[in-house]
Structures are given as structure tokens and as C-alpha cells.
């Protein structure tokens, strides 16, 4: 590999003598020298270009390749999570066909499904996948500021996934403590995977956090310190705002998971009692004592609730950009959208104990956490209104991307409204252990962000691969997933209301069994169909890579920088000889007076002199 190090290339810093000011983001009302931008003051970045297969595609330092690696590995773990959910649904809907599954297996599948989907799929995909691919492109830099660290970040994630999956093959199997991993039961005999399973889970999480910290450091510094000229923070696309804020949340929240995981490992292996109170087992007093299980719950949810927004904020950002591009309209209330992202991010650290109402707390704390929880509805509702107002009188292209966006809005509103129910202590206590909660969080942080991911895949695939995904297949994919997901989760609200408890292997002789059985069968069939429908996307991707319609440059007529690279797909270094110079925000769509219905961020005002400006 030594020869690659000779291949370090520094692009030459260039000074630009273009002009500008003007119009919407620099458009109209041109004055002489209006396109002027200051010469580059930030030195150019040295990039390491690999030229063997290993350094180009395996141990690669290009953020775009790392993004794709993150995406593929996260999707792989997501498919495992999906298969686990199928097995769970098989047991719940058709227990006679799931004779191979014991209650222990069921709990292990529940646990692994939850952890995989939240951390190893959604978080890794949004921040590692989209973050790596889009941040440098959207802010106009050549790569992340620390490319080597970025590569190490992905490989830490890889090892974390390997360790996690290894727990399926150790004695006792993976942990079955539930994805919240609550002690004392997580590490006591009787819980599936209480030995090696929980140990490997904690080690895997620690590796994930360590790896993510390296990636997060890159995302934050690239956004703050390595943007191109003219790219102010308030000219960044909302996608970058969402990923950036989510990264800050992750950097502040993941240490809690790390501390919790580390201390639980010590309780498990070295016999400490961080989370272990004095406890009896079969009438015998164990050697533990003095610890607090509630402390673990605080640590877990101090991470766990911001985690919801670590997933949601990038989705909010991405969907804003998709809606704006495909409705050919500037995003309504850009500033408000940024404020809402930042506000939600800040508030998310003050609501964690709403996950612990049933653990018992001083009523004043319950009151406090219920209030803060409900306050989050304000910035969230602002975003929903703004998405709808962006669509209003827009020149909507009802393509697959837009369908996913619309699907997201209704699903998010749906899940959000049930969140208002559960934010109240008195409503939460009876509903907490029922299927209502399952329905709520799957709608709001499962299906809704997934719809954004799908929309984003259809939107940015032409950039990554240079070809359009097939629209017809895409519509089949959308409708099956959308209607199927509602068939799964709508009935679960009802199941929750009639009191069907969650995390139960079977209903035994419960009085709810009669009304729940038919519905469980229906939900399971829907779940099998929705899972299988994802094969359409995989087929679509493979087919498109072979015979898909070439997309060319900027196929959606978007404004943001990622579409303005000299080559499609973008090469390592992104911008060829010269870095782009930004003259406006990325939302100049359908500007009155402009020749076309979009003005890219790099278009100097002198080229769009006829545009009109709206004063706000």
C-alpha cells in the first residue's frame, strides 16, 4: 500500500473574480460587481487517493464511498432486523406455525430487532450514510476534514455489527432483556443471553459509540469550518442542518449509553453494583448491593430520547429538501425550519423521564417532563405546517419521491398525535405496556423516517449511480409499503386500547385473546407483505444499475451543490480543479422573472438579472 501515499494530491487554491449580490439569495437588482466573492483564504485540503481495489473501495477515505459503505452495512443489519420482526409476527399471528420458537427466542428477537433498527440501522444510515455522502457535497468541500478518522469510524461500526451478530452464536444466544437492556434482569440468570449475550451487546454498543464519535467529529467540523466560499450557515440546505444538529445530539447523548453499557458490563463481569441493588435469587442473597436500577434507566433514556431526534432531525431536513425540489417551490419559512430543528434538538434533552412514568417518580417531576414533552409539539407542528405550506400552490411533480414525502407527512402526524396521548402521565400509565406504544413509536420513528429514507434513495440514486430508478416499480414499492404499514400499525392502536400487553410471547388465557387473534393474524400477513415489498426496491436497484435510464447532470433541476459537480457520479475531491462559489440559498425555485424554474446556488446574480425579489 506504500505507493498510494505518493499519490497525495493537493488541489490548488484558486481565487475567484466573479461578481454578485442581488435578488432572492443574490438574484435580482444587480449592481456592478455584484458577483464579487472574496478570494479563498482557507488552504486546500490534501486528499489521499487510493488506487488499488482495497484502498478505493474497502479501506477508503473518500466520504462518499464511506457513506455508501455505511448505507449498505446499515441496510444489511436492517434486513436482519426485518427478518426478526417477521419471526415475531409469525409467533403472534400463527403460533402453530412457529413451533420452533420458544419464549426465550421471542424475547431475544424482540431485543435484537429493537436495538438493530434504532441504532445499527436508522442512526447509522441517516448519519453515517446520508451524512457522509451529502455533507461535503452540500457544503462545497472536497471531503470530510479528517478523512482517515472517517474511515476508522466506518470500520469501528463494522466491528460493532460483527460483535453484535456474533451474539447469535454464543452459548445462551443474544440478550433477551428488551432493547432497553434494563438491569437487574438483563444480567441475571433466567433472562435469555444474560451471560455472553448482554456482554457482547454492551461491547458492540461501546464500539458503535466510539466509532460514531470519530464520524460525528468529522461532520461537525466539516459543517462549521470547511464550507466553501459564500456558503453561510443560513445558506445550507435543511438536510445539512438536520444532520448537523442530530450529530450534536448524538455527541452529547451517546456518552450516556457508553457509561451505562460500561457500568453494566462491570456489574456483569467484575461484580460491581452500579445498577444492582441488594437482591434475592431463589431465596439466596446475591453479592450485589447498593446500586440503582433507576440510575440505568436515567442513563439509558438520557440517550434514548435524544436518539428519537437523532433519527428524526435528519429525516426532517431531508424531507424539507425533497418537498421543495419536487414541488418547485422555496421551502416555506426556512428560518423557522432551522429554529425548529435547533429547538427540538435542545428540548430533546429535557424530556427523557417520560419513558419512566411507570417506574414511579415525584408527581412534580412527572408534571415537568409531561410539560416539556408536550412543548416539543410546537416546533414539530411548525415544521408540519411549513411542509404543507410549501406544497400549497407548488408545481407539484407527483413522482415516487413526492409520494414518499407525502406518506411521511401523514405518518409523522399520525405518530405525533399519539405521542401527545402518551406524553401525559395519566394516559401513559395505563397504555404504557400495551400495543398502543408499539403503534406510536413505530409510526413516528420507524415508518415515518423510513419513508424519508426511501424518498431520499429515489431522489439521490441518480447522483450516486448516474441512473434513474424505475418509477413504475417505485410506485408499486411505495403503495405496498404505505398501505401495508398502515395495515400493521393502525390495528395495533386498537389492540393497545383493549389492553393487549406488549412483549408477551403469547396471550395465554387472556380475555383479550378472542378479539386480538384475528387482528394479530391480519397484522402478521400485512407485515410479511410489507417486508417482501422491499425486495422490489432491491430488484429496482439491481435492474437500474444494469439498464436504468441515464440521469445526466442535475436531473431533478435542483439548486443545491451536490448536483453541480463536474462529473456524475462525483469523483473523489468532488469539484475537479475549482471549488464552487455560492451566491444564494438553495431554494430559489419558480422565482418570478427567471428563465427557468430553478436557480442553482452557484449562479451569480449577473446571470439572472430579471428576477424579482420578495421582501420578507
Amino acid at each position, binding site marked *: 500500500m506504500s505507493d498510494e501515499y505518493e499519490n497525495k494530491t493537493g488541489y490548488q487554491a484558486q481565487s475567484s473574480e466573479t461578481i*454578485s*449580490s*442581488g*435578488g*432572492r*439569495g*443574490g*438574484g*435580482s*437588482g444587480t449592481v456592478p460587481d*455584484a458577483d*464579487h*466573492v*472574496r478570494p*479563498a*483564504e482557507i488552504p486546500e485540503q490534501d486528499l489521499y487517493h487510493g488506487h488499488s481495489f482495497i484502498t478505493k473501495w474497502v479501506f477508503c477515505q473518500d466520504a462518499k464511498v464511506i457513506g455508501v459503505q455505511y448505507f449498505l452495512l446499515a441496510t444489511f443489519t436492517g434486513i436482519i432486523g426485518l427478518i426478526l420482526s417477521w419471526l415475531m409476527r409469525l409467533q403472534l399471528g400463527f403460533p402453530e406455525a412457529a413451533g420452533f420458537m420458544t419464549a426465550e427466542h421471542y424475547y431475544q428477537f424482540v431485543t435484537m430487532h429493537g436495538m438493530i433498527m434504532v441504532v445499527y440501522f436508522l442512526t447509522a444510515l441517516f448519519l453515517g450514510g446520508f451524512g457522509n455522502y451529502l455533507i461535503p457535497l452540500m457544503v462545497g468541500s472536497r471531503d470530510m*476534514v*479528517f478523512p482517515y478518522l472517517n474511515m476508522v469510524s466506518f470500520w469501528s461500526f463494522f466491528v460493532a455489527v460483527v460483535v453484535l451478530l456474533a451474539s447469535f452464536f454464543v452459548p445462551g444466544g443474544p440478550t433477551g432483556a428488551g432493547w432497553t437492556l434494563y438491569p437487574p434482569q438483563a444480567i441475571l440468570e433466567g433472562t435469555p443471553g444474560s451471560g455472553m449475550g448482554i456482554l457482547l451487546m454492551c461491547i458492540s454498543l461501546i464500539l458503535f459509540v466510539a466509532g460514531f464519535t470519530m464520524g460525528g*467529529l468529522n461532520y*461537525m*467540523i466539516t459543517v*462549521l*469550518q*470547511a464550507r*466553501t*466560499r*459564500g456558503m*453561510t*450557515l*443560513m*445558506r445550507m440546505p435543511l438536510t445539512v442542518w438536520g444532520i448537523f444538529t442530530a450529530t450534536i445530539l448524538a*455527541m*452529547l447523548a451517546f*456518552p*450516556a449509553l*457508553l*457509561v451505562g453499557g460500561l*457500568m453494566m458490563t*462491570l456489574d456483569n463481569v*467484575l461484580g*460491581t*453494583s*452500579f445498577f444492582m441493588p441488594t437482591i434475592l435469587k431463589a431465596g439466596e442473597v446475591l*453479592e450485589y448491593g*447498593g*446500586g*440503582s436500577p433507576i*440510575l440505568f434507566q436515567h*442513563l439509558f433514556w438520557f440517550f434514548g430520547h435524544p436518539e428519537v431526534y437523532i433519527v428524526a432531525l435528519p429525516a426532517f431536513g431531508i424531507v424539507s429538501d425533497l418537498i421543495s425540489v419536487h414541488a418547485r417551490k422555496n421551502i416555506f419559512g*426556512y*428560518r423557522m425550519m432551522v429554529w425548529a430543528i435547533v429547538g427540538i434538538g435542545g428540548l430533546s434533552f429535557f424530556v427523557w423521564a417520560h419513558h419512566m412514568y411507570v417506574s414511579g417518580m415525584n408527581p412534580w417531576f412527572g408534571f415537568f417532563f409531561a410539560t416539556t414533552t408536550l412543548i416539543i409539539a410546537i416546533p414539530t407542528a411548525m415544521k408540519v405546517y411549513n411542509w404543507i405550506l410549501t406544497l400549497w400552490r407548488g408545481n407539484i411533480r407527483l413522482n415516487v419521491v413526492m409520494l414518499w414525502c407525502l406518506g411521511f407527512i401523514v405518518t409523522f402526524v399520525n405518530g405525533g398525535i399519539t405521542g401527545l396521548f402518551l406524553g401525559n402521565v395519566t394516559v401513559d400509565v395505563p397504555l404504557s405496556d400495551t400495543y398502543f406504544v408499539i403503534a406510536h413509536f413505530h409510526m413516528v420513528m420507524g415508518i415515518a423516517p423510513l419513508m424519508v429514507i426511501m424518498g431520499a434513495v429515489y431522489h439521490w440514486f441518480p447522483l450516486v449511480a448516474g441512473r434513474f430508478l424505475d418509477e413504475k416499480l417505485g410506485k408499486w414499492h411505495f403503495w405496498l409499503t404505505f398501505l401495508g404499514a398502515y395495515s400493521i400499525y393502525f390495528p395495533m392502536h386498537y389492540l393497545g386500547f383493549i389492553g393487549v400487553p406488549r412483549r408477551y410471547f403469547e396471550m395465554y388465557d387472556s380475555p383479550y385473546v378472542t378479539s386480538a387473534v384475528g387482528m394479530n393474524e391480519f397484522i402478521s400477513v400485512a407485515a410479511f407483505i410489507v417486508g417482501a415489498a422491499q425486495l422490489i426496491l432491491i430488484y429496482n436497484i439491481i435492474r437500474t444499475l444494469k439498464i436504468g435510464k441515464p440521469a445526466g447532470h442535475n436531473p431533478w433541476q435542483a439548486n443545491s451543490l451536490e448536483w453541480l459537480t463536474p462529473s456524475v457520479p462525483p469523483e473523489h475531491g468532488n469539484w475537479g480543479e475549482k471549488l464552487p462559489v*455560492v*451566491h*444564494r*440559498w438553495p*431554494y*430559489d425555485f419558480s422565482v418570478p422573472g427567471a428563465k427557468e424554474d430553478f436557480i442553482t446556488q452557484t449562479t451569480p*446574480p449577473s446571470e439572472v438579472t430579471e428576477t424579482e*425579489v420578495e421582501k*420578507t
Partner: protein
Amino acid sequence: MSNLLKKLFGTLLQKPWESERAAIDNAHEGKTFDISVQKSAVLIIFGIATVLFSLVFTSYLYTLPPGQDTKYLLRPNLLWINTLILFFVTYFFNKITNDLKKKDTSKVKRNLLIIGGLTYLFLFGQIIFWFQLLKSGNYVSTNSYFANFYVFTALHGLHLLGGLLFWGKVSSRVLKLEQNKILEEEKNISALSLYWTFLLIVWLMFFLMIYIFNDAFVAWCKSLIS
């Protein structure tokens, strides 16, 4: 801090679509803060490490057992010497950064080596102290007072080891440089200096805490009042 908040709120209030704003924005060079990426990285690590150590402190306070056997920790011991060593490290870092500001590079190489040596000595001292604790029968599982002590010192030590990794990288480059070129490494050295100062502050917080939040200290305070 107030400048930072002003900047943050000022930024969030901008209207990027307006022509007056666009004229200002076009002159933006692309950087948010006028600091190096190395320093930015250290500051962000501060943030993360502060949360991490605060959570360990919180866990310590949350699970502090009654009637801790603190005799061993409270009498004069190796921890005091280790703390003194950390002070010396920060002193030498301070010396280097001051010298670099004055463009004096004559003692940079020597001081960098002293810093590395002293940090290794600190870590060695911590391990010796661990052995002394174990010998006296105070294990990680003895009670949460000691469990937290071991966890904290381990995490602090790991942070120092991480710092030493970058110290090694920077030092090996500096040692190869001619005197007049050492200034090229100023950004890296000042970032390292900042990191070590932060770890000294974290250590002092913890050091104070183990002496303040325990039954013996509370009893002593009570005796003062009575």
C-alpha cells in the same frame, strides 16, 4: 460566551433570500470560527468528554454508599504526587505555547519530551495506586465508592492515552524538524496543550469530589458546626 450566543442568534436571524443579505453572504469565506480544525476538534472532544465525566460524577453521587471506608483514599497517598505531576505537565505545555507565541523554538523539543515522560509517569503512578488499593482489599466490587473511583481513573487514563497517541504523532514530526520550521506545528501543539489542560481540570474536579462527597468529610463539616 456572550459573543458566541450573539453570533449564534445573529446567524439564526439572517434572511438568506434578501439581496442586502446576499451581498454580505457572498463575502463569507466559509468558516464559522476563526480557529484551526485541530482546535475545533479538541473543543468538541471537550464537550463530549464533559458529558461523559459528568455522567460518571452523577453516577457516583447517585450510588454513594453510606459509611464508605474512605480511610485509604483520605490519608496522604500517591494520588497527591500524581496530581502534582499533572500540574507540571500543564506547566510545561504552557511554557511551550508561550515560547511559540514569542517565536522561540529553542526549547520546544525538550519540553515536548518532558511532557510525554511526565504523562507516562502519571499513568504509571495511577496503576501503582490501583495496585496499592487492591492490596489493601479495596476492589472494584467492594462498594460503589471504589467502583466509581476505578471507572473514573480508567476513563481519565484512557483519555490521556488517546492524547499521548497524538502527542507521539506530533512529537515525532517536531523532532525531525529544523528549529526554524517548528512553528509549522504550532496549531497541533496548542491543540494538545488545550487538551491536557482540560484533562487536568477534570482530574481536579474528581480529586476534589472524592474528598468532599464522603461521609468522613460530612462528619468533619458537622463537627465544625457543632
